[in-house]
Structures are given as C-alpha cells and as structure tokens.
C-alpha cells in the first residue's frame, strides 16, 4: 500500500479521474466557455489549480500520518502543508464557481 501511495501513477490517476470524469459534473462547467471568455478561462485555470492542490493536500495528510522515514516534526510540517493545500483548493473551487456564475450571467 505504501508503494502505491508513494508512486506518481497513483496521484496522476487521481487528478486524471478528476478532470476527465469530474469536470463535466462540476457546477457551472461549460466546456466551450474558456475559449470564448477571459473570465471563463481564468475560472478553468483556478479549477485545474484546485485539483493540483487537492492532490498535494491529500498526499501531505497521508504522508504526515504515516512515518515514511520522517521525524515527528517533519511529519507535522507535511501535515501543515497538506492542510493548507486543501484549504486553498476549497478557496480556488469557490472562486471558480463565482467566476463561472458571473460569466454565465454576462452572456
């Protein structure tokens, strides 16, 4: 299990499932909008970044809760990085929804 969680394939797959399967099911998602509107494009970039932050956050929490060769103080720092990433990811997703709703209203 440890080797799976530490492999890049695991985290790339998670993000890939998010963007291929998850994106079209996300609130306000309109695939064509980013190519026509600046706000829509910015919103999509924020959504991508939030997925990256989400994966880093989950990795940080999992790595921090396991030893994986680090000291306790190092583990606390990894948990802090993970927690901050997840909070930032939530903020970016919220910004995405705000921008997309604004874009749809402006049409």
């Amino acid at each position, binding site marked *: 299990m440890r080797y799976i969680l530490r492999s890049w394939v695991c985290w*790339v797959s998670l993000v890939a499932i998010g963007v291929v*399967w998850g994106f079209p099911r996300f609130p306000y998602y309109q695939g064509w909008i980013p190519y026509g509107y600046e706000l829509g494009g910015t919103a999509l970039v924020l959504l991508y*970044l939030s*997925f990256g932050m989400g994966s880093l956050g989950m990795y940080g929490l999992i790595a921090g809760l396991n030893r994986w060769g*680090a000291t306790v103080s190092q583990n606390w*720092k990894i948990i802090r*990085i993970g927690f901050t990433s997840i909070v930032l990811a939530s903020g970016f997703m919220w910004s995405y929804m705000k921008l997309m709703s604004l874009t749809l209203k402006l049409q």
Partner: protein
Amino acid sequence: MSVARPVLYLESNRDVHLSDARCLYHFSQAVIVVAIGIVLAKWATGIPEWRDVIATENGPVERLSAAVWFMGCIWCLGSAYSQRDLAIEWLSVAMFLLLFGLRELDAHVWATGWNLDKLANYWNPQYSLQERVLVMGLLFFLSLIVGWILRYRLCKAGRRAWSEGEAWFNHLLLGLGLLALCLTLDKVGPYGLLFFEISDSGQIFLMMIEEFLELVLSVFALVSLWPYLEQALLCPE
C-alpha cells in the same frame, strides 16, 4: 529518530546530482501510462471517435495534459515551501510548468487576444506596429528573466552534468527534444512541410500525434521530477 532519505538526493544548492540513470525507462513508463489513460478516458467519456478524444479543444487529452502541468506546478510550489534552500529552483520550475499549462489551455489567446504561437501575427499589418513591438518586447523581457535564472542558478550544475553524463541532464535533453518535436508537428499541419502540402486527414493525424506527445511530455516531466518532489516534501527543513 534518523531520517531515511529517498534514494535520490539533491546534495546542495547548485550542485544537482542524480546518479540513477533511467531516462528511457521513465519515458517508456510515461508512454505506457498515457496510452492506458487515453483508452480509459475514451471509455469513461463515451466519445465514439478517437479523433474527438485526442485532438479536440478542451477534449479529454488536452484536459489531462493541462491537469498534469498544473499539478506539477502546485507540487513544485509545495516543495519550494518545504525545501527553502532550493526555493528559487523550485519556483523557477513551477513557473515553467504553469506557463506550459497555460499554453495548453491557449490562455495567451483568451487573455491577451494575441496568439503567440502564430508566427504570421508578428508581421501581419492588420495589427499595429506598436502592438507587435510591445508583444515582442514583453517576450524578450520574459526571456531575459529565464536566461538570468538559468545563468546564475543552473549553469554550473548543467556544465558538470554535461561533462559527467549525469542522468537529470539526459532527462532535460529528452524533454527539450520532445518539446521541439511537438512544436514542429504543431506547425507542420497548417503550414505544410517544405514544398509538400498536408491533406486534411494527414493534418488530423499529425494533430493526434502532437496531442499524444504533449501529454507524454507533461507526464515525463512529472516523472522526472518525482524523486525530487518526494524528497522535498517528505524531508522538509
């Protein structure tokens, strides 16, 4: 308790050392994972045509490429925070990955109204000379910043890696080669190859190869960085 560092270890700032030479192994890993990923993406989205899966704007493959670039960017930012003495290197890599991700989503087109990839724009009289000079000046300024970072932070490590044949340099060369191939394929389709015009089906085929290689390039970049990212994140200072 002692800290068991991962196998690959950045010895110090500007002294990048990677002893494990597995450039082609990483490349083949990236190709296999991307091929499996595309098959799964086609199945998951239910899009009937391969062409629509691989070579459409904001299609599954383009979304995957952008997602991997942005994911790499965020993980590099996390590493910059975690490994402070290499923060400038990590921030530089994050900036490059962010630019690649933005380029994948054509951000320069919808954000500025200018297609920087389209070379014909630079001598198109439809745009004012002032505007064209401004864009070129901006590009020149950005190139200067990149050049400064490369000169002062990576030049010494690069020279040593070149003379001693270190593995990360091979990764870099292969990545640059792939990038050049993608750019060539991107331009060969619409502009033709020397005196040969490319048919419509040929253009779509070239576009599919280009999008596939772009996804391979993004995954290859992440795979190459992975040991460094793990080291930075698992052993914060």
